[in-house]
């Protein structure tokens, strides 16, 4: 394989991976954030304490978390086909990736929100704040550094999952690795793919750490 061809394949693969990870990460954020907050609010002693709802949400999250991703990938094929029209290609892979990432991120959100000092919630309630106020002005801003760290972890997990999506024709770097590395023994190319993945993960982790550090430093110092 020519270097030219390799570069072309790598570029396309990386873009596909970013496409899958980006969209599924966004959906995980939009879906997981309220789910995680609800898990805290509906828990015993929470502002919206509701045992049945809490059990139901917790159950859904646990099912989502306990399925190995590769199985989820296969199990969701009919659902994906219904939603996207096909089960092949990067866009189709977004569906199982998002479904897998929502409960994962929701649990991280739950942990982050739970760590917010209850005294702050009480202070907001004592000054006449509603549940919405507490969530928007206390829980989320106070948990922001942990939430960013959780999102970073989620995105990195998604990069890993997206490679698995290659097994069912998801495209991206995973498909490249399977086609060229596993089926055609092109070890050089395989190593390149590994290098790209390492770079991707490192960049995401560093960026996430940087944001978390900035947020934490801001809280300790002047604005």
């Amino acid at each position, binding site marked *: 394989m020519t270097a030219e061809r390799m570069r072309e394949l790598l570029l396309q693969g990386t873009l596909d991976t970013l496409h899958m990870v980006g969209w599924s990460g966004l959906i995980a954020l939009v879906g997981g954030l309220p789910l995680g907050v609800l898990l805290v609010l509906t828990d015993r002693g929470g502002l919206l304490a509701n045992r049945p709802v809490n059990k139901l949400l917790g159950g859904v999250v646990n099912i989502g978390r306990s399925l190995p991703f590769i199985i989820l990938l296969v199990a969701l094929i009919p659902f994906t086909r219904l939603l996207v029209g096909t089960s092949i290609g990067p866009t189709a892979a977004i569906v199982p990736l998002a479904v897998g990432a929502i409960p994962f991120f929701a649990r991280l959100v739950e942990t982050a929100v739970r760590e917010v000092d209850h005294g702050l919630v009480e*202070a907001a309630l*004592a*000054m006449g704040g509603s549940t919405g*106020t507490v969530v928007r*002005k206390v829980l989320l801003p106070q948990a*922001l550094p942990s939430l960013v760290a959780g999102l970073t972890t989620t995105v990195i997990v998604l990069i890993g999952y997206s490679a698995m999506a290659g097994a069912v024709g998801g495209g991206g770097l995973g498909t490249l690795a399977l086609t060229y590395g596993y089926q055609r023994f092109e070890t050089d190319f395989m190593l390149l793919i590994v290098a790209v993945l390492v770079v991707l993960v490192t960049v995401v982790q560093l960026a996430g750490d940087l944001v978390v550090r900035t947020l934490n430093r801001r809280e*300790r110092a*002047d604005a």
Partner: protein
Amino acid sequence: MITTTDLTRVHRARGREVTALNGVDLHVPAGEIFGVIGPSGAGKSSLARCVNLLERPTSGTVTVDGLDLTALAGRGPRAGRELRAARTRIGMVFQHFNLLSSRTVRGNVELPLEHLPGLTRRERARRAMELLDTVGLADRAGDRPARLSGGQKQRVGIARALAGRPKVLLSDEATSALDPETTRSVLRLIRDLNRSLGLTVLLITHEMEVVREVCDSVALMERGRIIESGSLRDLLSRPGTRLARELFPPAAPEPLAAGELLLDLELHGIDPAASPDPVGPDPLAEILRALPGAEIRSAAVDTVAGRRAGRVRLVVPGATHRDGGGIDPDALAARFRGRGVELRVPGTPDGARGTGVPAPAAPAPGAFGEAPR
């Protein structure tokens, strides 16, 4: 301003029932600083938290500024719109300040303003700056709370509590995390706000020092009940109550030489303004002059609610009553009765004589130097 009737609060923790409040009837008049003191676990904090319904009373009613909050509460743990509106007019400060680290000092004060209707961003900022100015922290508006000292954090907490122009301030152990010096300055601020804004303050504390410093009235709580209560002035002129005893703990027993007479003076609120001349009508000065050679062994005198109150223990030499040549404590006591001073020979609660013998053990050693403020 704050009235609770038969307030009862029962917690249920792991199947066991704990009664935090057991039929509390509290009445806090408008404009007063009302202290609630008691050992930890007495239900003091539950009482404060029931006043703004952060804790739901199991039974009984809470009325603040004529509004029956328990009727507004609705069912379930969530606060309805009316209760939330009522809460904006009840400020609360906390032991651990509870400031948001994600916001600046000014942002923290703006938080309660954000759910008041009809305030623009600029109005909120201006009001927050005014409030910070009131507590003397306008120059720290842009700082994060983490950069402030404990006393400064509590001042921000107070500024935040005042945002909704409340008539009532609930202070739940607000000075318990602060050192004595800072405690005094925060209490002084609360006293100033009480005077300048007519703010009614319900002050929860476990320190008698705090009560002595700022309170007009005080209630003693134990095991979910109010055991004693009254204005400080009344408590002082009503000796024998637990609160009076704890405000001014009795002195320890004294070894006496033969012929010496021990005299305890209880000051029940001498008004210093009424006796501007220090050696004039001040009964304390008069007593000292009537007892030549008398020595002050210990004294705990303080200005409480604008009046001097406390205990002074005197040893009068060569005054053995039995010899006849000394002084007559009964006559002296009669002379000063009704002038805010009571004389007593220790160990004999009715003031009967007893000389040259050590007094029986007092319940608590509590003599400390005079600390006028």
